[in-house]
């Protein structure tokens, strides 16, 4: 199981800014190890976010996204106390969901 994500959600006016830091290797499949063998690709393919269980966002990612990916987005009409959950799925089928409360 992968390490937990760090999610920070802050309300400002009628919207909330959500910042997510995921823990993932994000191998492109193009790098080679010291023996000259290609390291197989391993990256997050799909990220989705929901507020109080209602989906707000789905994203498809390729291997060009940096290691330990960062993502920031703004959720409309969110207020303090709302629950933001973020899920990712990688190309090996591993997945992780974490939740944070808007403050």
């Amino acid at each position, binding site marked *: 199981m992968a390490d937990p994500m760090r999610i920070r959600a802050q309300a400002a006016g009628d*919207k909330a800014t959500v910042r997510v830091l995921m823990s993932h290797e994000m191998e492109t499949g193009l*790098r080679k190890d010291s023996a000259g063998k290609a390291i197989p690709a391993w990256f997050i393919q799909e990220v989705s976010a929901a507020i109080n269980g209602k989906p707000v966002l789905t994203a498809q990612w390729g291997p060009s996204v*940096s290691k330990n990916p960062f993502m920031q*987005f*703004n959720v409309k009409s969110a207020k303090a106390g709302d629950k933001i959950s973020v899920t990712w799925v990688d190309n090996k089928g591993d997945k992780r969901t974490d939740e944070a409360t808007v403050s």
Partner: protein
Amino acid sequence: MQTRREMLARSAQVAGLLAAAGLLPGTALAAWPQAAFEAKTMADVVKALGGGAPAESKDVTITGPDIAENGAVVPVGCVTALPGVKRLALLVEKNPSALAASFDVTDLVEANFNTRVKMGQSSNVIAVAMMNDGRVLYAAKEIKVTLGGCGG
């Protein structure tokens, strides 16, 4: 003794089981647009995502540094204030696969995303907005990289 008919029925069953278990490589996620991530140019990416000819627009903004010291972590953002955006995509023109990320926009989220991408070399970074009415708008920005992010 097994008849030919039984054999065929059994092999069909096995094939079905294999497919159901997702054992074929690359089928982990049905929704992931493989063709779009394999495309090399913006026009091909947009085509693979089901859009028409892209047009440059001032209403789409791409943010990022002019010079990135480390190509492995380049902070970029894409913003548009236009209503009716269906999808925002981030492309790095000279990467082995141009498309870096594609965000599906809903009514509950602003068309404003920031993330970090890898860049192999200095290149144009492009934000593409696909609208509900079928228009495809983009904005490009050149980012110079002093140290590429794809070396080992």
